């Protein structure tokens, strides 16, 4: 999921990405995952191409893709913020954190900022409950957050235009 965010790399065409998989429905989810890793989301065109490849109606593919939380149908921002909404994070105030984040970025959950820099999501549980409240940004984990720490992080990323390693 991290590969396409390393901006400069050449995006492979969809048929090249999926060619290594056997033409069987069993591999549908893996195919969708790999296409999303390449493009950041599943476009209508890529779903149609997968449909041709697997000889499966695109409605079925759409049905599978919308069932799972992981798949996105719209292009996400360059910095994807996922706030954890697990139990431990909830008890430690992740709802307030989410509110602060919405205010800071000026977008709602599931949206992308106009400049395409940030997108905001929630995730059921990151499994980092011991360092709650936590969030994941472009595959990196951040824990023990509060409003101030979040403000600082968002400001740095906004200024740099990317997430530092």
């Amino acid at each position, binding site marked *: *999921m991290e590969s396409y965010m390393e901006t400069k790399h050449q995006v492979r065409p969809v048929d090249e990405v999926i060619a290594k998989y056997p033409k*069987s*429905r*069993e*591999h*549908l*989810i*893996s195919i*969708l*995952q790999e296409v999303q890793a390449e493009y950041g989301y599943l476009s209508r065109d890529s779903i149609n191409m997968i449909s041709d490849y697997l000889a499966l109606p695109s409605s079925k593919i759409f*049905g*599978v893709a919308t*069932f*799972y*939380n*992981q*798949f996105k149908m719209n292009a996400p921002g360059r910095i994807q913020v996922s706030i954890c*909404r*697990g*139990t*431990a*994070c*909830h*008890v*430690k105030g992740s709802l*307030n954190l989410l*509110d602060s984040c919405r*205010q800071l970025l000026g977008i709602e959950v599931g949206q992308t900022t106009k400049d395409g820099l940030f997108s905001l999501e929630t*995730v*059921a*549980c*990151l*499994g*980092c*409950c*011991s*360092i*709650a409240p*936590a969030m*994941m940004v472009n*595959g*990196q*984990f*951040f*824990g*023990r957050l509060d*409003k101030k720490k979040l403000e600082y992080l968002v400001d740095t990323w906004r200024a740099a235009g990317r997430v530092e390693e």
Partner: protein
Amino acid sequence: MNRIFIGMGTCGLATGAGQVKAAVEKWAAARDMKVQITRTGCIGYCNAEPIMDVVTDDGHRVSYGNVTPEVAGFILDEVLVRKNCKLDGLLGQFVNGAAPLAGIPLIEEHPFFKKQVKYVLRNCGVIDPESIADYRAHGGFKGFERALGMSQGEVIQEVTRSGLRGRGGSGFLTGRKWELALASRNAKKYVICNADEGDPGAFMDRSILEGDTYAVLEGMMTAGYAIGADEGIIYCRAEYPLAIERIKKAIDVLKSEGLLEKPVGPGFLFKLRIKMGAGAFVCGEETALMASVEGRRGMPRPRPPFPSVEGLFQKPTIVNNVETMANVSHIMREGAESFSAMGTQNSKGTKVFALTGKVVNAGLVEVPMGMTLREVVFDIGGGIPGGKAFKAVQIGGPSGGCIPAEHLDITIDYESLKSVGAIMGSGGLVVMDEETCMVDMARYFLSFITSESCGKCIPCREGTQRLFEILDSIVSPYAKMPDEEENLLRFNRVLNMESLAQVIKDTSLCGLGQSAPNPVLSTLRFFRKEYEAHIYDRKCPAHQCKGLLTYTIDTNACTGCTLCAKKCPTSAIVGEKKKTHYIVDEKCIRCGTCQDVCRFSAVSVN
């Protein structure tokens, strides 16, 4: 050459273990010393992460917690150059066979570890999970080799004798499940390891996969041999990138060592692959999981037929949880008695819990079955931070229940937890203090369930939605329901809340739906007063339900500094400079910013 161990599980990395590793490398380069850095998994004491262990010149391994990049160099200076191990953040030394260092406590004696029994977690945070040699040095694959020398029936008997029950939540006897699969004459069988740990508030499986990858794979191979399967699949959540990476590496190593995809022992041929989940909670249910592996929407189907008879691609399949699989490798190596000696009459062995929430020592704990909850929360967990009062502990995630203070002395085993309306579940233990609102908690779990319900059966799809709406109306201000009719409707719904919960429980298709109302039922059972305060007094005693809060500024304490008015995101605070300010209730969104910024504690909430 000195060995340095750094806990680099997800929790370690998130708290800066990566920077600590860089600091150690820099330190070594500056002094032209050679150190061997080993990335271990999580030892469980996540609260003290990043954790760094330093092995002294004479082979003693000493562990330090809360290591920052700045402190790392200092610790290395002291331990390796000045030979002084007594430093701040010292957790203790490991037992290594030699006489222990004088004056340094053993790590087993640390309050967090003292009451724990490490059976399945023994290697987590101790060995290098990416090194098969390290795993072998700690007894790895001995159990598998022993199994290969036995007949299939004998292996299953050994597992049955140990009394191991499924650690994923249901508590079905593992050996019994395997027996059913062995009895099937089908030539093609599957072993699935369920690593789709979707319970919010649980991370046992992640830690085991990250910290002791080979143990899980060994368990799967043993299971494969026992039931006569030739293919194993690990279904792992995509949210666990590190675990996935380590499993992939481990499978490659096993292939190159000839343990996979080549006949071993009495002609046993097994292949393993990993399948990434795509973020659906219901896929933790075994029939839904299999649908997902087949590339379909992860929807459960009615049982029977049970997966042991007709599972993945209509072939006999066993589905076991990560912790179960890891336990199998240790049971096969050390014999059934090593496991069955621990625990209670009907619940043998140990259980790993993810202890989190409002507790001092958050982390991963492994305790023998039969220990009381009080010991886990107060002795191991160290109690509630900030001197606050304990309110409840939530066990079993969205399918479980809340256990209040009066039942804290209950023993941990499958049956007694059921008697208080909770379940063992996969092992999430979330501690709550007086500042947690139980109605809000129930509402939180229901909102989770409504978004995760697969939509196949009506009681779960519609029922949980209605139940959520009822709870929502309980915590919402009157202003949201202006006319009388709606208020009556709301009252009517509240009256029917319990019976609705019961219907969902009785009529849902799968375990997710059947247990969905549990958070509501259990909080209603033990915290009815809190519901009543919300419904009759329109007050949230814990000050958590935003809709029921009002922020007011104390006219005497306010100095008119205008800070709150400036910071208020909705400009709901009015007032002139150096004069008392007021909050306009209609505009207030209850974000609490004014209370945070006020330097005179003039803002109060009610």
